[in-house]
């Protein structure tokens, strides 16, 4: 497993822990009505579980497991995968912090979700740009190998 996939899967597991713990607190609050301010964390819960856990795990496994470009094990432009990692997690962080920061500062902070959306878009483009050339049939892979020889 390449280093980028290890880091992405570990970050995804941490986001799963954090997101599901927040979700558990919200479910308990639904029954007990003790800490109503917890509902401010609901967008953070969904962002961490959808993007931070599911999308990040899918990207990490795809970067790890899709066919490599040559017999030396070249995975193509790995900098795009690192860009995806940085922007995806930046987007989750900004989107998760938006509502709590609005509640604390009493300002709309409308630029925050816009920036998070832009980062998400960049993350998806970077992931697709990295993975696209690696979606190959075995026959195509054989042709590339022969051309290299």
């Amino acid at each position: 497993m390449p280093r980028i996939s290890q880091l992405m899967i570990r970050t995804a597991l941490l986001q799963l822990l954090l997101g599901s713990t927040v979700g558990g607190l919200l479910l308990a609050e639904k029954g007990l009505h003790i800490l109503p301010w917890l509902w401010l964390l609901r967008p953070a819960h969904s962002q961490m579980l959808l993007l931070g856990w599911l999308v990040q795990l899918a990207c990490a496994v795809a970067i790890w497991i899709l066919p490599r470009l040559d017999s030396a094990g070249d995975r193509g432009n790995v900098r795009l995968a690192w860009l995806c990692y940085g922007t995806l997690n930046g987007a989750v962080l900004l989107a998760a912090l938006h509502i709590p920061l609005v509640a604390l500062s009493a300002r709309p902070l409308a630029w925050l979700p816009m920036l998070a959306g832009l980062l998400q878009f960049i993350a998806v483009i970077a992931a697709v740009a990295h993975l696209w050339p690696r979606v190959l049939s075995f026959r195509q892979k054989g042709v590339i190998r022969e051309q290299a020889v």
Partner: protein
Amino acid sequence: MFPSHSRECPRGDERLGWVGYGALNAGLALRAIAEPLHATYAFIWMGWGLALAALLQVLAIWALVLALWPRVKGARPRA
């Protein structure tokens, strides 16, 4: 799918996987019962039922993450 934990114990501590399996399904079943009842009758014990369901689900996730964490690593060099 993840790399094996070790030659002797390829999946690591499998008990964590069983705890995750049991707690996740028990938590989901309890939630499926407690949430509609709480929405309909709102007795305090149903609220505690929801809290217990939440605890079981969170426990399941922690157990599964603990089981998987040591297996996120590079491939072992072949002998």
